[in-house]
C-alpha cells in the first residue's frame, strides 16, 4: 500500500562538509578565507556550467552573511541596475558578496559597468566533478539522507543517465521517496522502474 509522505523529506543543509571539492579546492579555500575576513577582497564571482556546484557554494556563503545573487546572466536591464546598486553599497560598506553566472564576467553581454565590477574582486570558474568524484558526492548525499546505496546503483546511474549533478541528485531523491512511499529497499529494479516512470 502506498504511504503518503509528510511534505518533502528533509534535504540536508548545504555546507563545506557535504561539498565534494573536486578541482575546486582553491575556490573553497578562498571562500573560507573571505568568511573569516582574512582577505581584503569582499567580492567573489563564480561561474561555470550548470551543476558544477556554484549554488551549493552560494548557499554556504549566504549562511555566513554574504549578499548573494545567483544566475546573473538571466538579469534584464532593470535587474542589472539593481545589482549594480547592490554591488556599490556592498563595496562601500565592505560587505561580503557572492554572485554566480554561467560565463566569465565579460562574456554575458551585461552592462559594462556591471561586468567590470563582477571582474573586480576575485573570479573563479567552478569546475564540474569527474565521474569518480560524482560517485563520491552521490554516496555522501545518500549517507546524509540515511539511504543505503549500493555501488552498483551508482555505477548504473553514471552509465545510463545524464551525468550532471542536479539530474543525479534528483534521481537520488526520487529513489528515497519511492522506497519510503512503497516501503521497498533501494535496488536496481526500483531504480529502473523510476527511470521508466520518469520517461512517461
Amino acid at each position, binding site marked *: 500500500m502506498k504511504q503518503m509522505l509528510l511534505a518533502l523529506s528533509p534535504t540536508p543543509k548545504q555546507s563545506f562538509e557535504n561539498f565534494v571539492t573536486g578541482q575546486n579546492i582553491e575556490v573553497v579555500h578562498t571562500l573560507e578565507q573571505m568568511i573569516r575576513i582574512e582577505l581584503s577582497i569582499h567580492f567573489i564571482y563564480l561561474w561555470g556550467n550548470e551543476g558544477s556546484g556554484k549554488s551549493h557554494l552560494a548557499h554556504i556563503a549566504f549562511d555566513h552573511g554574504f549578499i548573494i545573487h545567483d544566475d546573473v546572466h538571466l538579469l534584464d536591464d532593470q535587474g542589472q541596475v539593481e545589482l549594480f546598486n547592490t554591488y556599490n553599497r556592498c563595496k*562601500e560598506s565592505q560587505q561580503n558578496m557572492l554572485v554566480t553566472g554561467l*560565463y566569465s*564576467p565579460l562574456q554575458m553581454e551585461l552592462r559594462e*559597468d556591471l561586468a567590470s565590477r563582477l571582474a573586480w574582486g576575485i573570479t573563479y570558474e567552478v569546475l564540474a566533478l569527474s565521474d569518480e568524484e560524482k560517485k563520491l558526492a552521490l554516496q555522501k548525499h545518500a549517507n546524509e539522507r540515511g539511504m543505503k546505496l549500493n555501488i552498483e546503483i551508482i555505477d548504473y546511474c553514471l552509465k545510463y543517465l545524464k551525468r550532471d549533478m542536479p539530474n543525479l541528485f534528483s534521481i537520488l531523491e526520487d529513489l528515497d521517496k519511492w522506497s519510503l512511499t512503497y516501503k521497498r529497499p533501494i535496488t536496481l529494479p526500483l531504480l529502473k522502474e523510476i527511470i521508466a516512470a520518469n520517461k512517461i
Partner: protein
Amino acid sequence: MENFWSHCLECFKKELSAQQFNTWIKPLKFELDQQHIKILAPNKFVQQWVKDRFAHKIEMLARELLPDVAKVEFTILAINDSLLHKKEAVISKALAINPPNNVTEPHVTETSKNSVGHIQKEVKTSGLNSHFTFESFVTGKANQLACAAAMQVSENPGKAYNPLFIYGGVGLGKTHLIQAIGNHLKHIQPDAKIKYLHAERYVSDVVKAYENKSFDAFKKNYHSLDLLLIDDIQFFAKKNRTQEEFFYAFNALIENKKQIIITCDSYPKEIGGVDERLRTRFSWGLTVAIEPPELEMRVAILLKKAEGNKMKISEEVAFFIAKQIRSNVRELEGALNRILAMSNFTKSTIDINLTKEALKDLIAVRGRQVSVENIQKTVADYFKIKISDMLSKKRSRNYSKPRQLAMAITRELTNLSFPEIGEAYGGRHHTTVMHACEEIDQIRLNNPSTAQDLGILMQVLRG
C-alpha cells in the same frame, strides 16, 4: 574672418582625438579686434593649456590666412558668473528657496573635533573611502590632465573650475580620482563638509524625501556642502524630479562658490535623457576626459597594486597581464587578485605559467564543457573527413578511428550518458560507445601517436 576660425577648427578636428577636441578647442571663442586675434577660453586652465600646446599652430594659420594680423592673444571668457547670476535670480524668485545669504555654513562643533567616534561617523557619512588617494592613483597619458585638474580643485575648491566634470569609460579610475579630491580636502580642511555619493543614491534620496515629505531637510543637507562629489551622473537619465532637485542644489552650491565634481560615462552634451539646462551647466567649469590606460600605464598600475598587497611581480609578468587585459583598470585589479590568491594557495612564485592559469578563470571565452556537435566537427576537421562519414555505418579504419576518439572525448567532456552518445553518433547501441571508450583507454597507454592526437584534440576543445 569667421572663415579663419572655422578653418582652424577643421585643422584641429583632423589632428586631435574627439575627446581632446571637445575638451580644448570646442569651448574656445574667437574674436578679431583690428589687428589682434583674441582666443577666449572658458577658464584659466583651458587658456593655459591651449596657449602651451596649440598657440604655435594657431599663429601659423593666422600668418597664412590673415597676413595683416599682428598678434594672437589668449584670454579668459568671463561669462559664467554673469550668466549664472542672471539665471539664478530668476530661479530664486520663482521658487523662493534658500536665498544664498541664508545658506547654513557648515558648522563643526567642538565635540566633533575631539570625539573620535564622531569623526569616524563623519567619514562614514561623507561616503569617502580613505584608500582612494592621489598617492595611490597611477597617472599616465590617459589621465594626467584629469589628475592635474583634480589636484588643483582639491587645493582650491570652489575657485579653480566649477563644476569639474570628469568623463570616460567604465573602470578607468573616475571614482578613485574624485574620492582622492575629497580625501585631500578632508586632510587639509578637516572641518569641510564633504559628500561623495553615487548618482543612484542621490536618486533614492530624492525618492525618500518625496515619500517622507522632507524636501526641506534634503535641501538643507545638500545645499550646505562645501564639496559635493557625484559619481555616474548618467544615472539621472529620465528621472525628472531628481534632475530638478539637482538643478537647485547645483545652483545653490555654485553661487556660494562651493565645489561640485561630477563624473559621467560621456561628454556633457551627449548624456541622454538629461535636461538641456543641466547639461549646459555641466560644461560651465572644466570638462576633462579619462581615456583607457596604454600598455605602460597598465603595467605601472599592476606593479603599484602588487606592491600595495606586499607582493612582488616581475615586469615580465606585469607586461604579460597588461597585454591580455586591455580594457579597464577594474579587470586588471581583478586579474591581480586572482593571481595573488593562486600564488598564496599553491605557495609558488608568480611566473608566466601561474599567471596564464589564473587568468583563464577571468577571461575564458566560454566554459570548458562543450557540445557534442562541436566535438564532432573538431574531430572530423582534424582527421580531414566529413561529419556525415563519421556518423555513417562505414567501417573503414579512416572513419572508425576518428569516430571512436570522438565518442570517447564526448564521454569525457559532456554529461551525456552512453545511450545518449550512441544516439548522437548515428544511432549506435550504447555498448558500442562503451567499447569505444575502453578501446581508446587502451590506445592511450599503448599508442603514442593516437595518444598525441587525443591530447591535441582535448586541448583545442577545452580552449
